[in-house]
């Protein structure tokens, strides 16, 4: 790999758009391929480019064209999954770094300045807005998990409504079974069907008898990963 090619790969990863590098296993020649262009010293035919782009969409790295010169290795770089946490509460202080460690891009939404004040969330990105506006900025997609932690319907409900209107792969809400039943009633009043609200994991988190904020964060993280990997299969 040439040093300028490595720089290109590292720069492109920051742009959060999927792409692939293709390496000729024998010669080491390489090209970077995205939706529109290919850069590098490895020439690829139109059918090869199509196959590489199919692999980018499917997020499937691997060796192709093994019959020619030992094959071409396609390494797909997909942007990280995201986790949107609503409520910069105590559990968020544990969940945000755990999710970050697990490779997620984490953003916390909370309109309450004092909860987001410097130091409470370390270097996690925070959006100090009401969840309606915050969720618009975040625009959850099929690689996004949304977890509400505030217990406050004024904050949780609009975030859950926005999540339900998105393709978010995971939606979870903290709160007891009783408050969750009340939450489902309110969402039903907003026009969401039972099938819609069935997407919400509530109470969020795997049942591991978690007690402390950090333990609850672990149980939430485990459930999010379970959903992410189930989607991938």
């Amino acid at each position, binding site marked *: *790999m*040439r*040093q300028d090619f*490595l*720089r290109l*790969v*590292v720069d492109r*990863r920051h742009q959060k758009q999927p792409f692939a590098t293709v*390496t000729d*296993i*024998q*010669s*080491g020649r390489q090209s970077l391929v995205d939706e529109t262009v290919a850069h590098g010293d490895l020439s690829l035919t139109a059918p090869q480019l199509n196959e590489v782009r199919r692999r980018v969409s499917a997020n499937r*790295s*691997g*060796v192709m064209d093994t019959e020619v010169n*030992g094959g071409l*290795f396609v*390494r*797909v770089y997909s942007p990280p999954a995201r986790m949107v946490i609503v409520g910069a509460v105590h559990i968020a202080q544990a969940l945000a*770094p755990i999710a*970050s*460690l*697990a*490779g*997620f*891009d*984490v953003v916390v939404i909370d309109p309450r300045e004092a909860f987001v004040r410097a130091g409470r969330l370390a*270097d*996690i*990105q925070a959006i100090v807005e009401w969840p309606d506006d915050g969720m618009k900025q975040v625009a959850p997609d099929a690689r996004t998990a949304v977890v509400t932690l505030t217990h406050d319907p004024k904050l949780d409900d609009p975030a859950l409504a926005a999540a339900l209107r998105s393709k978010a792969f995971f939606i979870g809400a903290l709160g007891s079974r009783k408050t969750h039943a009340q939450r489902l009633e309110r969402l039903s009043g907003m026009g969401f069907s039972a099938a819609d609200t069935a997407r919400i994991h509530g109470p969020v988190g795997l049942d591991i008898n978690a007690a402390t904020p950090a333990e609850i964060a672990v149980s939430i993280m485990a459930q999010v990963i379970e959903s992410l990997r189930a989607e991938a299969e």
Partner: protein
Amino acid sequence: MTGAVPDPLNQLSRWLADGKKAALATVIATWGSCPRPVGSHMAVLENGDFSGSVSGGCIEGAVVEAAQEVIGTGRPKLLEYGVSNEVAWEVGLACGGRVQVLVEPIT
């Protein structure tokens, strides 16, 4: 933001920016049970320091040695490791899988 686990490509960039010589090892194929998926990277510095992983720690030592050789020759090398029943202490994957690792010098 990125997590607290160091990213091998970022580490590789920093080493090169410091004028050091390094190689990149990447899992390109796996068969059976393997701890790290295809695409996993490990950056290796000429002195043997490394960042990232290509297995659960079973073959890293051998890959580091191969990477140091690749840094010397300037030519990529394809490595393959499998289960090693006959010689239990030989470098191999205890989980019974097989893995191919491409090691490329950064030039």
